[in-house]
């Protein structure tokens, strides 16, 4: 059975159609949009919180989106063990809503960073990464102004010691360095998972490197991994 994806549309989401195209048209899975005012999530195995600028990024990125009716449902869905992926602005919504620890603050470069980066897969025993090899290096685009992952020392230690750092910014050889860090994230953290292992947040955009016509399909692994697990 193919996983059924539900892609949340907030006012200001702009990667919702990318996620839909990647899952539905390229990978051939079942996919539909979930409106931010919806009060139920039905017939959905995986919720995607897509990238964009929900509510104009007013106040803080993701701060208003966390209060929308659909997020109440997403939180309940996640607490029951439902699979959730937050990409870019979706990651910011997940930290704001408390489903993931820490916060995404302004890039230390002071710039909006829009480019391909390399990621090293730090944990491939997760439902989101089983298609990758341990320490495999993948090329994935980023596009954000506030992707600088921050958390207190205790939280960082907890994430590091429990395999909860899923992706780390690296160079093409998998070397982790300050030069390979596009935004100043602590320990080059690009993506993390919650304690239970069912909620993933990442700043890079795997849905933008799924279609072969774009010349890079490194992001397919995230979605294909879910297929294996749900079956």
């Amino acid at each position, binding site marked *: 059975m193919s996983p059924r994806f539900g892609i949340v549309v907030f006012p200001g989401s702009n990667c919702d159609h990318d996620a839909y195209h990647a899952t539905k048209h390229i990978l051939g899975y079942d996919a539909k949009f979930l409106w931010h005012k919806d009060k139920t999530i039905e017939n959905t195995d995986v919720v995607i919180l897509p990238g964009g600028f929900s509510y104009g990024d007013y*106040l*803080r990125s993701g*701060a208003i989106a966390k*209060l929308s009716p659909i997020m109440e449902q997403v939180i309940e869905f996640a607490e029951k063990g439902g699979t959730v992926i937050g990409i870019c602005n979706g990651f910011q919504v997940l*930290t*704001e809503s408390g489903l993931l*620890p*820490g*916060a995404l*603050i*302004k*890039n*230390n470069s*002071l710039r909006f960073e829009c480019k391909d980066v390399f990621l090293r897969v730090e944990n491939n025993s997760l439902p989101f990464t089983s298609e990758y090899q341990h320490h495999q290096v993948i090329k994935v685009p980023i596009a954000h102004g506030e992707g*600088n992952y*921050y*958390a*207190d020392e205790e939280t960082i230690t907890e994430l590091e010691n429990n395999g909860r750092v899923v992706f780390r910014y690296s160079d093409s050889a998998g070397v982790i360095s300050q030069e390979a860090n596009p935004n*100043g994230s602590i320990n080059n953290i690009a993506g993390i998972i919650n304690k239970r292992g069912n909620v993933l947040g990442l700043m890079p955009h795997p849905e933008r490197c799924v279609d072969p016509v774009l010349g890079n399909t490194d992001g397919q692994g995230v979605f294909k991994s879910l297929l294996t697990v749900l079956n």
Partner: protein
Amino acid sequence: MYKVTVLVNRRRSILDPQGKAVELGAKQLGLTDVINVRVDKKITFQINTEDEAVARKEAEQLADKLLANPITEDFEVSLEKIV
């Protein structure tokens, strides 16, 4: 009725790129003594109640749950009775 002012300050230990940018601008203006610039937020609103305790409670709840992110920011709430 109460007028509420909430100051939301990014923790001093956390990088403030906007402050850094303003500091660079100050240097461009020749103001080389200007250091430690921080760009914080001031949010004002009114609460339609005559009960100060209620006003304070609601203002603090709003600041804690929405206006500030407790992981990276602190806040200060001040109230002023208006007629």
